[in-house]
């Protein structure tokens, strides 16, 4: 599926601040076999005094922007055309869950895609007793890793209520799980914690969902803003699979990836530091429009 993506994120600062510096992860990248970027353009207003593009450890495109003089508002606008060819796994090639530790241990490398980065505690997500117990309950003897991912994602989807008011961007997985409420970021963090707790390497994907569903299908939660879902490493043969616990499905053709990491802190779309005190307001608008007939 070919998509046209338009995203606008606006910040208004309570007080003008000088030397505002932002690290932005909003540009989609090519992912071999899954995603191809035909065009991408990130416009930043007011025009920053400095702008640098780079690739981070996990392979995401980053844009660093800095303003020397005080500004009181910033606007980021993304325009991109992306072709997505990620079908849900056709068959289950994943390792048996009890074989997974050996397959992980065999991956002796520090390359960004190896599972070791995604198993222990990361800045925002650590395995916890509650989520590990929850994950264990969903397991059955002889399960494959992929079956476990789906079972846990589905159970979580049923246990949790989507609620945009219940949490903020800083809410921990523990809090969100305790109240069984939250948005895609919370669903994703909780599922990552649950998977790591039973030894399945899991990470965070940020990106988009198509805005309008195919005819006859319901509009998905999270389509009106940036979305988040889980990627899990299920063995040497199958590698990484992506599952969306907020909508209880594999992240297939309806999804466009922007960035991957261990948790939200690795993929935050706009990370910023201001020198003055005082908060800011932010607005987000997203359109993800299919350019092909379904």
């Amino acid at each position, binding site marked *: 599926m070919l998509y046209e993506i338009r995203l606008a994120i606006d910040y208004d600062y309570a007080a003008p601040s000088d030397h505002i510096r932002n690290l932005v992860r909003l540009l989609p990248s090519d992912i071999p076999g899954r995603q191809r970027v035909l065009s991408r353009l990130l416009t930043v207003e007011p025009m920053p005094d400095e702008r640098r593009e780079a690739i981070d450890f996990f392979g995401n495109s980053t844009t660093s922007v800095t303003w020397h003089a005080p500004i009181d508002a910033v606007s980021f606008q993304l325009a991109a055309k992306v072709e997505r060819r990620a079908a849900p796994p056709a068959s289950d090639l994943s390792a048996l869950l009890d074989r997974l530790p050996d397959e992980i241990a065999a991956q002796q490398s*520090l390359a960004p895609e190896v599972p*070791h980065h995604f198993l*222990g505690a990361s800045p925002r997500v650590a395995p916890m007793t509650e989520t590990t117990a929850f994950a264990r309950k969903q397991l059955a003897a002889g399960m494959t890793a992929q079956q476990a991912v789906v079972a846990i994602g589905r159970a979580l989807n049923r246990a949790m209520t989507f609620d945009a008011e219940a949490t903020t961007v800083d809410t921990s997985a523990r809090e969100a799980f305790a109240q069984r409420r939250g948005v895609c970021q919370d669903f994703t963090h909780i599922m990552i914690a649950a998977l790591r707790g039973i030894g399945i390497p899991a990470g965070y994907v940020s990106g988009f969902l198509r805005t309008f569903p195919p005819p006859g299908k319901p509009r998905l939660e999270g389509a009106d803003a940036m979305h988040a879902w889980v990627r899990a490493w299920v063995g040497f043969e199958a590698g990484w699979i992506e599952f969306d616990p907020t909508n209880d499905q594999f992240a297939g053709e309806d999804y466009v990836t922007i960035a991957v990491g261990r948790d939200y802190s690795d993929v935050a779309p706009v990370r910023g530091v201001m020198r003055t005190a005082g908060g800011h307001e932010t607005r987000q608008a997203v359109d993800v429009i299919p350019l092909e007939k379904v």
Partner: protein
Amino acid sequence: MTEPATTPPAPDLFSDYRLTPGVADELFDAEGRMRPVWRRFVDRFSRLNRDEIAARFERGNLYLRDAGVFFRQYSNDPLQEREWPLSHIPVILHEDEWQGICDGLAQRADLLEEVMADLYGQGRLVRDGHLPAELIAGSRQWLRPMVGVPPRGGHYLHFLAFEVGRSPDGSWLVLGDRTQAPSGAGFALENRMATGRIFPERFPRAHIHRLAGFFGAYREALQRLAQGAGGRERAAGILTPGPHNDSYYEHTYIARYLGLMLLEGEDLLVENGQAMVRTIEGPQPLGVLWRRIDGAFADPLELDPSSRIGTPGLMEAVRLGNLALVNALGSGVLEMRAMMAFLPRIAEVLAGAPLKLPNIATWWCGGDTERAYVRDNAARMMIGPAYACDLPFDIGAESALGGAFRDGGTRSITDWLEREGQGLVGQEAVTLSTTPVWVDAEDGGRVEPRPMTIRIFAARTPRGWRFMQGGYARIGKTGDATALAMQRGGSVADVWVVSDRPVPQETLAPRPTPDFHRATTAILPSRAADNLYWLGRYVERSEDAIRLIRAYHLRLAATDNPNDARLLRLDEFLTGYGYDLEEPVPAALIDRLEAARSCAGKVRDRFSTDGWAALNDMLKTARRMTTTAQPGDDAARAMSVLLRKITGFSGLVHENMYRFSGWRFLSFGRALERADSLAALLATFADAEAPEGSLDMAVEVADSVITHQRRYRVETSRDTVVDLLALDADNPRAILFQVQRLRYLAEALPNARENGRLTALLRAIVPVESALLIATPAEIDTDRLCTLRGELAGISDLIGAAYLR
């Protein structure tokens, strides 16, 4: 070694020096003979009587107190500083033995550099199976943004420390590598200064290797690293987490000693990929930072976002090759305890030779064989977190020693190892050597053996690693030679590396040369200027309050009538500033003094130790008075004491501080505050509505009673008082005098004129000064005084905007 066995020469001092079987000792070798390197020291020491010993030790303590050597303990109370716990008897080693240790450490330092380069480069050690991927990927100290970023200057590691100890067989062992931000080098210098006071004799001093040469070489290396393209001069600084850190004192000391700027994260900004220091002259390029903060905190944008002590964009300056950090960000991964398990093998792989100096035997419990070994030998192991970076003996409650949990828990160690193996290491429970320590007792004290470890500092120079020659040993607090005694609460001793011949005397001061020139004025960071400015304001504000409170209590004592009109006026005036006169020493006054101390604490590298001590002394006295002073005469006397102390502080600072820009900001703050408080005083006590006697009080508070008598030879009138306290250019307690001072100081600040035009700051001061010059006392009414205060506030904003941000 054919020397005859020697017994300790002074049986009474050394009578309790009993060696423990199976424990090596520094004073005596394995055969019980005194090591020759100690003999002359022991010989002289034993001839001292206990009083002489006590007097000498007190000289050392006095030096440390006068120098203000403190070790801060983590707590919320800024006064919570501990005296430096000096163990007065040094540890003595022969230079040949020392050289042997340093040879081994030089090999180790090179090895650590190679491991670091691989972990942030090719990753071969992991791919080839010499380091487990899960261990590195699981470490919080392995900083992913550093992967693929070559260090400026070609090296990751520049300043290291190694903790070494002597095994029972007499050989030396590395207990820990400090690669992140090693502390203690400044304290080593202070140890040396203090023992110099205790043992001032030419021998052994002439034979002890000096420490200064090491610092000289290191400073040169730093300056070389700092240089920009084409040898362009760029600044070097120390990046400190700030006054709340436990070794902040050392940061200030080292900064002063090496002539480096002491910087906090907010002093820096990154512009066009270049790290800059915010200074009163605008941003200045910075080439190298000796960081004393953990790497993860260095940049909240790309590293730990919760960091409040970092600088956004610092990582970008590093990535673009414009900034060298000592040591490179991410070097903390080498401190991980589990690393010790792999280094011996890595040495053979990378260098083709075993470690010259072994490290403490360590097994990472993530491997099946190693886990089984640790389980079977738990009785002679310390088992603790694999990812921890503490030294082996700093084991916490989460650890097991000799098969038992430190917290007394009765959990199964076997289960623990099975469940959390990847996160655990076993380390051989080491037995350290003992060294002589003076132990006080009722009969005057004696020498006893205590376990010790030595910290050795290494600096990379163009001619290879250079080692500090002694200076720092940690001494255990009990005689128990297992590592447990080394935990917190021990003391620190100097280490003498002694030569058979007198050694060359190096100092850090440059050799005098015929073409002697003065160093250019040091750069003043804006934050330091800001703190000096506010220090000036708070001290003046406190002094003003003390005078007013004293005036109140003097009147109270004289009239014994709290409803006296003048007292009510004074009460109202002081209440407006938050002073509650029900309290003889108002809490708000303590707050002001604490604010002054807090500002001073942030610029301790910039003014004298005596000034700092005076400020602390004043605050302690004031705090004590809050519980003792009684209203009236007693409180007035208390205020007089505080007044003498605060003017003592001001005198120390103003008489002794070099007239650098820093002094100008301090003085500017003081002058501005005094002008403002005089305006406030006159607005209240020279007001048409003020009760009778108010004018006299104003003159008294302004310390101008005698001047008034001499100049006017009449009773106070509104005109004479306003003339004296507002319009007199020769009275330091007149507004005009202080405003003229502001102009004079502002003229001397950097960039005071732009293309011949006055800056906004001077454009604001000059009209105030002119208006006061031509005004008559009658024109300076209360309205005019209030306007004046607004103008002064505007001047404060302008100096802030121009220099202090």
